[in-house]
């Protein structure tokens, strides 16, 4: 049967010159005075966070584990959201999805927030108890290793993941940096000269670019899951006496994909709405991301329930204490929040097509999921760090609810501000939408008519 695809409808996509003017020549389409004001505000909150951290040490020292549960939750939250976001530039690309190109850079830019995760993970080295205390070895995934092995290897893993994320961002930005090197101006051009001095666009360089992005992406995925498994095991799992759950580390890793997708949706929405990128990011990207978000929200419940049902059915005193600690007792409020915001609300909203096919709907749900993830990490981090009797066979006493103090709130504000600060700072150098991805998409696709509807023809040469 003959194809019914006919001549193109009008093509209103930006030309190469227009895209270059938008993405390369202007550091950001937002007015620079507004940007400066935002940097100052965010910087002030970062300082507030540092003050909170210092005063927390002054008030509680670093031996009172109970006082640092919220700090652990913050690092876990950053690792979950910013660490998971770059996966969005990996998984759809493996499936040769063309729609993802405008938001690929957005997801990679979250690697910059990894710098904050790495810095904030340093105090954890001093907070985590050693494997052996008073000649008693506690249970962990480290068997008979030296007492400070988790401190060393977990930190190396977090720093390794951050290095990998930044390498991926740098590698995929190189063609755009080369364009800024030639056509940009000021300090941005100087940085581009340093970061992409030799890229001139030979066929060999383009081939190497494709391969290096593929290799780094594969490594990122392998390293992300590994880092989550280590972090969840050492900073949460191993601190609760008698807590044995093979699914929990994977739950921690999987929720990272959900929260990472939510972060990319939210950032894409803001760039579309306020950043001046509405010619590049549109309904096609948000709609497809919302479908992924819907599937990942279902998986949240699947992983949670797989772990929960074993504990609930077993009815052993150890397992009942663990359920009480994380789901029923002192952190019931956080658990209910996580359940509603990470599963029930996303599922009952994103299942409707009219919500998915909108810019605002998925963005609001993404915000809800990020808040739910924060509550989930508070439930786990604060719960685990409030327990006592680390060498006991099982949890004897479920601790009381630990509420955040003023210094915790300062640190929360500083964390959010620091993340936003780093993201915005990197967008001053690297375009938030990739010029070469946009242009390649234009080269291999074109709008056309299929009978009376508009379609897009996409060639997939790779």
């Amino acid at each position, binding site marked *: 049967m003959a194809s019914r695809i006919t001549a193109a409808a009008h093509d209103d996509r930006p030309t190469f010159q227009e895209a270059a003017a938008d993405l390369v020549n202007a550091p950001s389409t937002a007015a620079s005075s507004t940007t400066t004001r935002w940097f100052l505000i965010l910087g002030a909150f970062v300082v507030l966070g540092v003050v909170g951290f210092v005063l927390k040490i002054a008030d509680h020292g670093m031996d009172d584990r109970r006082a640092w549960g919220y700090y652990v939750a913050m690092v876990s939250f950053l690792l979950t959201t910013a660490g998971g976001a770059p996966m969005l530039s990996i998984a759809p690309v493996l499936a040769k999805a063309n729609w993802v190109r405008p938001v690929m850079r957005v997801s990679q830019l979250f690697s910059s927030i990894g710098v904050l995760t790495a810095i904030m993970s340093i105090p954890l080295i001093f907070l985590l108890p050693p494997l052996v205390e008073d000649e008693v070895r506690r249970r962990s995934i480290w068997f008979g290793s030296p007492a400070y092995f988790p401190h060393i290897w977990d930190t190396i893993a977090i720093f390794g993941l951050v290095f990998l994320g930044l390498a991926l961002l740098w590698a995929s930005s190189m063609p755009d940096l080369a364009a800024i090197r030639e056509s940009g101006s000021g300090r941005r051009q100087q940085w581009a000269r340093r970061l992409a001095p030799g890229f001139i666009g030979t066929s060999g360089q383009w081939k190497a670019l494709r391969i290096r992005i593929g290799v780094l992406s594969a*490594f990122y995925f392998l390293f992300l899951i590994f880092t989550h498994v280590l972090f969840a095991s050492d900073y949460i799992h191993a601190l609760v006496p008698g807590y044995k759950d093979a699914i929990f580390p994977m739950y921690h890793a999987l929720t990272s994909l959900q929260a990472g997708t939510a972060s990319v949706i939210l950032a894409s929405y803001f760039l579309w709405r306020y950043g001046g990128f509405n010619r590049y990011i549109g309904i096609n990207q948000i709609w497809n991301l919302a479908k992924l978000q819907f599937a990942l929200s279902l998986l949240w419940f699947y992983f949670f329930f797989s772990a929960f049902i074993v504990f609930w059915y077993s009815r052993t005193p150890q397992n009942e204490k663990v359920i009480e600690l994380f789901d029923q007792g002192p952190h019931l409020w956080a658990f209910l929040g996580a359940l509603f915001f990470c599963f029930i609300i996303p599922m009952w909203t994103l299942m409707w097509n009219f919500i998915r096919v909108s810019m605002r709907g998925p963005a609001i749900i993404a915000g809800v999921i990020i808040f739910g993830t924060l509550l989930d990490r508070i439930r786990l981090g604060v719960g685990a760090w409030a327990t006592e009797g680390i060498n006991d066979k099982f949890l004897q006493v479920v601790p009381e609810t630990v509420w955040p103090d003023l210094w915790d709130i300062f640190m929360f504000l500083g964390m959010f501000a620091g993340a936003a600060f780093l993201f915005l700072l990197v967008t001053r150098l690297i375009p938030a939408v990739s010029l070469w991805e946009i*242009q390649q998409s234009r080269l291999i696709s074109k709008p056309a008519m299929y009978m009376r509807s508009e379609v897009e023809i996409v060639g997939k040469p790779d």
Partner: protein
Amino acid sequence: MAKTSILGLYEDPEDGAKAMDALHAANMDPNDFDVLTGTPYPEGAFGEHVPQHRLFRFPVFGAMVGFTLAIVFTAATQLAWPIVTGGKPILAVPAMLIITYELTMLSAVVMTVIGILFESRLPNFNPGAYDTRITEGLIGVVVSVEEGRESEIEAILNNAGAMETKRA
């Protein structure tokens, strides 16, 4: 013999492809000419010779080094301090897995980044003839020619529709 780099600039990619065809027809060595673009065209779109890359060798080499280091490190420390834990053998594979995986991955990642620097020839101090307008969408065909053949090559590039040629 000293070589000159000549660049032909084209507005239409089709003209760039014609220039590449003409260079092939003139029996130029495929390693002596290349196409420069500001965006990744599908491989072979200009009939260009795509050089073999060595990028996979770097992570593989890194992974092998990291794996070996990890095995030596974990085995040597366990043998130097032999403590039986939970009735398991001194050299227990599950106890060595985490460090082996982490060092293998880290070493592969570091070597991949070194590979990027090497493969991209960064910094490139002698890129040959180049024009900044390539980053604005023009197609460049760059040819490395022996002395005496410059005019012949420029004629080939111009006949294919070059808007401009330049030497370096």
